[in-house]
């Protein structure tokens, strides 16, 4: 099961700032459980942010990105009521998309 990505998008003077946090364990594959067994690698590999239908950021992650990946960036354009959506997939093929409204 995956949890929703938290997205906040606010527009100021024609520039939209996006803050997002994707819920994901981002296991490197090197950590050991309290029982001593290696925890299998499990991390996001691709993350894409769209403004309406336009790509505004495309990211590729390795396991060195922190748990619950957090990103802040801005793009020119955007208006209140328009949408920003975040999609990711991980190394196990799990995927998730979430959408927020620009404020």
């Amino acid at each position: 099961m995956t949890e929703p990505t938290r997205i906040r998008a606010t527009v100021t003077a024609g520039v939209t700032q996006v803050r997002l946090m994707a819920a994901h364990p981002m296991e490197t594959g090197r950590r050991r459980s309290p029982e001593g067994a290696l925890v299998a690698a499990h991390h996001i590999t691709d993350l894409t942010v769209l403004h309406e239908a336009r790509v505004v950021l495309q990211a590729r992650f390795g396991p060195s990105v922190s748990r619950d990946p957090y990103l802040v960036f801005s793009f020119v354009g955007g208006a209140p009521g328009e949408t920003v959506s975040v999609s990711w997939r991980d190394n196990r093929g799990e995927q998730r998309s979430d959408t927020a409204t620009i404020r």
Partner: protein
Amino acid sequence: MDRSRRSALKAGGRIGLLAWLTAAGVLPVSAATVAPVFSIKGVDAVMQALGAGGARESEAVDILAAEIVENGAMVSVEVNSRLPGTRQMALLVDENPTTLAAVFALPEGTLPQLQTRIKMAQTSHVIAVVEAEGGFYLAKREIKIVQGGCG
């Protein structure tokens, strides 16, 4: 891993990061598959794979981060570029088991300024590689880690 995927990624490294990202984006993701560039160790080798072997240090690229960080599991890092035509940014951690942390493609209209959080196993240089007009540029910054965070 099958041969065509491997050679496609190799070729991608030669023709540039953007093409590589595009190529990688359309390939299917199978269980436990990690793109080869993320499994390469060492800053020089990763830069070669990104097509950024000849990157020059630039004062127009800044890495903003604390000098000393208590917990290496969450190190906040911001990369800023003032280089015209900035379209790619990559973050590398010299002393991590996985050198390449993340690669970002910035389409036109996206500002060349990004903040994220990475893991650091120990005190290390963090390297930001930027592709802009005229090629690849980089900035370096040492971040001291009190307690490593690569699990």
